[in-house]
């Protein structure tokens, strides 16, 4: 009998521990509370601005998490992630724009197109990520992203250039539609879109978490830590890296679709530019690389700060209207993000969630002693 139950391997033991702790960990309760809060948000705060920030935080959290899958979990340093986001956003916008009138089937079609494009382009990118030294790959992806940005600006007949494309959504999702009141809140296209974004973002995020915890995710981590060892253990590191590239790209491009769905406007500056890539990096670093949940913290931090910091600085301008340089100092709030970014990388390289986990682990170790 004893022969049929061989001793657990360390990995099995860790998995068993994770499975046992699944419904008791503090993290789970935090997630449930977060989800409930986001679901009730329209009733809790009746401000479009708060709802707007909440929706964008959800989209960017998933986008950043998908980037974390590449950089934090697989060690692939690509600077073309914003490009996939842009591909997704443009998919929806251009289908509706060029079709003339928005129809229901445009939404799944856009999701399909976004996925297809992302798979195609990411396969090419993945091919290079395997052939090139890390540094050359960074350069290649940076150049590719820049090229996509230039295309979106200069291919005027397709993208309307720098003006961007604003469009309407079909039927119930149209801003004009209103379906009466529910518990004191007007049910309209905005609200429905918010819930679509919420559901899709939650789904994608869970998908990323499952992916990272899956056997494939473990292999990716082992490739990041020591590629030769993973190869020596018999894993085809090749295939796993392609998988990570493609999966990350597809999620990013679906995030782009969600973003377009929410803001109903797509332009090079708002979905393709290096600024978006910088934002992704900023959110990831502040939240913490290789944690996945750090992306939620990072996205919330940056987007909330962006929304209200700009206000605060505008107030500064009102009080000090005479000095030109001071005025611009108040205008260029991105400057402060840049400084923050550099400081975080130097002094706080694990980010908020990474550092919090480290402190928690240290405390647990001390308790055990």
């Amino acid at each position: 009998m004893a022969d049929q139950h061989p001793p657990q391997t360390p990995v099995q033991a860790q998995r068993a521990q994770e499975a046992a702790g699944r419904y008791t960990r503090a993290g789970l309760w935090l997630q449930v509370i977060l989800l409930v809060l986001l679901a009730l948000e329209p009733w809790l705060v009746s401000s479009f601005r708060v709802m707007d920030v909440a929706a964008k935080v959800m989209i960017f959290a998933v986008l950043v998490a998908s980037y974390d899958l590449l950089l934090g979990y697989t060690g692939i340093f690509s600077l073309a992630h914003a490009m996939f986001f842009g591909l997704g956003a443009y998919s929806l916008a251009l289908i509706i724009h060029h079709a003339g009138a928005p129809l229901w089937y445009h939404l799944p079609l856009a999701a399909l197109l976004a996925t297809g494009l992302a798979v195609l382009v990411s396969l090419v990118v993945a091919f290079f990520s395997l052939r090139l030294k890390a540094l050359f790959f960074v350069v290649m992806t940076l150049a590719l992203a820049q090229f996509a940005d230039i295309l979106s600006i200069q291919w005027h007949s397709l993208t309307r250039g720098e003006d961007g494309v604003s469009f309407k959504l079909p039927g119930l999702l149209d801003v004009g539609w209103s379906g009466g009141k529910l518990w004191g809140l007007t049910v309209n296209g905005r609200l429905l879109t918010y819930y679509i974004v919420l559901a899709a973002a939650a789904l994608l995020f869970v998908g990323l978490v499952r992916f990272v915890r899956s056997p494939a995710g473990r292999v990716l981590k082992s490739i990041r830590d020591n590629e030769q060892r993973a190869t020596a253990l018999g894993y085809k590191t090749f295939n796993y890296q392609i998988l990570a590239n493609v999966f990350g790209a597809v999620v990013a491009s679906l995030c782009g679709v969600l973003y377009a769905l929410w803001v109903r406007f797509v332009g090079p500056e708002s979905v393709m530019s290096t600024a978006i890539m910088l934002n992704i990096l900023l959110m990831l670093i502040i939240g913490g690389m290789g944690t996945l949940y750090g992306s939620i913290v990072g996205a919330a931090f940056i987007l909330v700060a962006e929304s209200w910091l700009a206000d605060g600085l505008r107030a500064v301008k009102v009080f000090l209207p005479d000095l030109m340089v001071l005025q611009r100092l108040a205008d260029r709030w991105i400057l402060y993000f840049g400084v923050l970014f550099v400081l975080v990388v130097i002094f706080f390289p694990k980010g908020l969630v990474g550092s919090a986990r480290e402190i928690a682990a240290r405390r647990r170790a001390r308790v055990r002693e």
Partner: protein
Amino acid sequence: MNSTAQSAAASTQSAADLKRWAGWVVGVGIWLLPLLWINLTTYLVLTVAGVTMGMLLFLTASGFTIILGLMDVINLAHGAFFAWGAYTGFTVLGALNKLGWVETGTLGQSLVSVLICLLLALAVGWVLGVLLEWLVIRRTYGSHLKQILITMGAALVMAEVIAILWGPNDEVVLTPAAFTGSLDLWDVVIEKFRLLAILVGGAVFLAMHYVLQRTKLGIIVRGGVENREMVQALGHNIRRIFTYVFAAGAALAAMGGTMWSIYTREIRPDMGESNLIFALIVVVIGGMGSVTGCFLASLMVGLAFNYVAYSVPTLALGVNIMIMAVILLLRPSGLMGRS
């Protein structure tokens, strides 16, 4: 027996020669391809424009490649030095114009104003380079990931500071009077400033070549690219040399920025970004750490950009990405890089 072996050796030798020759013929001949769809006069004009762009790219890319080769530092803030140089030149020309030296004035005054621009740009680049190396780069030795992140942040901050000091909008740069207009050589129209840019770029290349090949500093730098530790153990303070090289690279980029701004006549706070992309492509094609490779790659990128931009402007960057991809697939370390 012996003679067969010899002739076999000779034939592999001649095969290798043939291959090298074929490489040269293809490498040079490919630049004549645009003649298929561009007439000769236009082709020559574009070639001059391409060489000009190549020379100016070289100013930025050469610093980047040496910093990468010697210090193993990826500096994505390199383009920001370029932008700072451009704004320095813009300010200097604006000030000198009040003296009547720029838009009007003699050849001498034009020359002196460009010279002042270049010297001040070098100084600004040097100071910023030393500052950045001390404050930021030192903390990132050995970690490419940190370097890329930190220098991206630094590039953003440096561009933002430009926007604060000079304003966020495009500005028009004045061209010194003696360098406006163009020469007409058998219907080939060549802007005068392009000739100056080619002269300056060529001079910098030669000077750099001299310093690297003939001086002790050059030997230390080349030795350091190969084996940093040994150069230290032979009694050289490599850290101080890092600072100098970093600052020199920054100064060259700033000088390139000044030349570029006078050449294109417009500047923007984020102009460093697109220049950086081209410089990166040049560095990758040329092979990191190789100045000669960098020079050849600069010319390649400049020429390819101009030939393609003339026909399909949208694809000009795309073609360079393709060249980079092809070269990397053929030679993963670049044209002159060591594997």
